[in-house]
């Protein structure tokens, strides 16, 4: 039925199978849609956020998505600026994953603010001192860049290629992609950093506050480094997941291995700096404010175990696995390390957001708990549904993986 739209030389599942595959994700989208309408119509009282938990599940999802989506700009940087040609086989997937992550995050932010209609005030009445302003500017611009990077991939659809003007337009966009890759890299560096800066500058919140260089707290640099270290891991995971579901090899090993190797070095560097930062904070800034490290964990379910899990289990261990060439060449170890690294970065963002807010600063303050409502889960999971749906559509109708037909000459396997 839709075969004229499917790229040449590759095989896709029947429209019926594809339809059933999309149903759960459409279900998640509908759930999120209902939640979004309720929040816009009735207000944020539909969530369990409060004056204590001013940021909650959505912001954790946002920051997690943006960190994991960093694979797009970093792979773009390596492909177009550094000139690693082997990554051309994975850049399309990285760009689409980045687009999904960023568009999802921006959509969630639109619901998360109390007065969505005033969202443009960020640009109109911008407070240049606010890290969140820089985040908003860069994310919005970068989403535009990602859209531009996505367009040539869409234009490669078989039917669209038949229109000469569009084909030429797509080709020309390809030619100047280095410009967008450079712009994306610049924008991404700043907003990944500013997201970290957002928490580091909260000098009245000792759990998050950090010293730094000039106006940039150390979290600024740590967030950039952690995002570019883990972003490629997420790209690897998504690619491997697509390969597992479609039961095909889609990306040559050299591209995956290069990303894993770069990730290993960056993750190792990040872990060294993160440990240094944690020690300086623990023995420097925290005691200066009359607190001990353990004071942060006097109440509530959060404890030192989170830091241990973040740094050792989800930081040092994946860094070691990825560092060893023989380990990263084995599918199982590669997936384990990538999963751990991605979990670590989400845990890091969770701690900076939720744990920071949960810990009372006033000595007589008390610990409050927070559990998200179904509306909050709905909107968050809808982004995952949206991501899988968009990626599935892209995989089905666009030549996302340039080497697919070369790597699968038989073309007899069933695929999604």
């Amino acid at each position, binding site marked *: 039925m839709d075969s004229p739209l499917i790229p040449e030389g590759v095989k896709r599942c029947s429209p019926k199978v594809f339809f059933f595959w999309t149903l759960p994700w459409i279900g998640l989208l509908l759930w999120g849609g209902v939640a979004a309408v309720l929040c816009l119509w009735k207000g944020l*009282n539909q969530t369990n956020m409060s004056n204590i938990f*001013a940021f909650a599940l959505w912001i954790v999802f946002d920051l997690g998505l943006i960190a994991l989506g960093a694979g797009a700009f970093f792979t773009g940087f390596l492909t177009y600026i550094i000139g690693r040609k082997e990554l051309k086989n994975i850049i399309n997937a990285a760009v689409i994953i980045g687009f999904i992550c960023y568009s999802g995050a921006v959509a969630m932010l639109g619901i998360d603010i*109390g*007065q969505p209609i005033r969202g443009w005030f960020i640009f109109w009445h911008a407070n240049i001192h606010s890290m969140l302003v820089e985040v908003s500017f860069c994310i919005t611009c970068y989403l535009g860049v990602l859209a531009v990077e996505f367009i040539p991939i869409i234009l490669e659809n078989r039917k669209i290629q038949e229109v000469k003007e569009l084909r030429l337009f797509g080709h020309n966009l390809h030619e100047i992609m280095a410009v967008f890759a450079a712009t994306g890299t610049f924008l991404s560096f700043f907003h990944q950093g500013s997201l970290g800066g957002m928490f580091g*500058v*909260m000098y009245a919140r000792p759990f998050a506050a950090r010293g730094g260089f000039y106006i940039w707290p150390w979290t600024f640099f740590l967030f950039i480094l952690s995002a570019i270290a883990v972003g490629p891991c997420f790209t690897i995971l998504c690619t491997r997941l697509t390969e597992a579901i479609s039961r095909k090899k889609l990306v040559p090993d050299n591209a995956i291995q290069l990303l894993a190797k770069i990730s290993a070095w960056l993750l190792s560097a990040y872990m060294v700096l993160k440990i240094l930062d944690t020690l300086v904070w623990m023995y420097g800034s925290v005691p200066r404010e*009359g607190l001990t490290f353990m004071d942060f964990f006097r109440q509530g379910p959060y404890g030192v175990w989170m830091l241990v899990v973040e740094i050792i289990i989800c930081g040092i261990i994946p860094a070691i696995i990825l560092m060893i060439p023989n380990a990263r060449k084995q599918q199982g170890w590669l997936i384990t390390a990538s999963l751990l690294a991605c979990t670590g970065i989400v845990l890091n963002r969770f701690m900076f957001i939720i744990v920071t807010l949960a810990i009372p600063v006033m000595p*007589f303050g008390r610990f409050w708990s927070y559990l998200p409502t179904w509306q909050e889960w709905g909107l968050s999971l809808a982004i995952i549904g949206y991501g899988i749906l968009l990626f599935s559509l892209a995989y089905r109708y666009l030549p996302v993986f340039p080497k697919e037909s070369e790597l699968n000459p038989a073309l007899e396997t069933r695929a999604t």
Partner: protein
Amino acid sequence: MMEEQHDHGHRFGMVIDLDKCTGCGTCMVACAAENNVSVRPDESDKQRSITWMQLFKITNGKEFPDTEVSYFPRPCMQCEEDGHGGHHPTCVSVCVATATRVDPNTGIVSQIYTRCIGCRYCQAACPYHARYFNWWDGYFPKGKGLEKYLSPEVSPRMRGVVEKCTFCHHRYMRAKTQAYAEDRRELEEGEYVTACTEACPAQAITFGDLNNPEHKVSQLAKSPYAFRLLERINTKPKVYYLSTRDWVRKMADNYLPGEFKRVKKVTG
């Protein structure tokens, strides 16, 4: 010091004597009534209640008969500078839409409700929880008389924006208008006080210009028993507290063992 000035050089502040405070909560009620603070039919969810002035109860943690209780009335601290080379309170520097700022003429931290986009970054940054988000539309049930108490001088807030104590800024405007009508340029001490100051039956709250040495508030703020909440994190509040009790003063900040210094010499 009483030089001719057009509204500049003031630093309005407050001193709350915790040894006088009985914890009656009149300040909270007066504040809510004065500032058109909306209520909910069910106010049991304290994480979402709006209380510009909030009362915290503390105890010395000892068993009867040595138990002592004190109360911390907590308005917005009206912080003035970050102490790190910048000049912004923690909430002001983070606000994305410049919806909050420190008035350089009064030191009051304002909030522009119609500009606030409700991102709540300021709430995350404030360690005092002095900022409140409007989780619901304003609610003033008609037919129960509540609407008659609405003050025309204070704009009610819409859903989805953050609000906070403004040191009853409208009272300052009213006092200035009165002075202008009487051809005066300066306000006398006591002409502009907040609703909580006026309502406190124990007269525990003193309000005035911290920059004016003749104002009682600036003298009290220099007392050896005066302290501020969380002074060590450098928020520089303009709300001071007084207490002769060591354990109360100690409760206002975080101290490592041996760091807290008792007041040895009683003066004034």
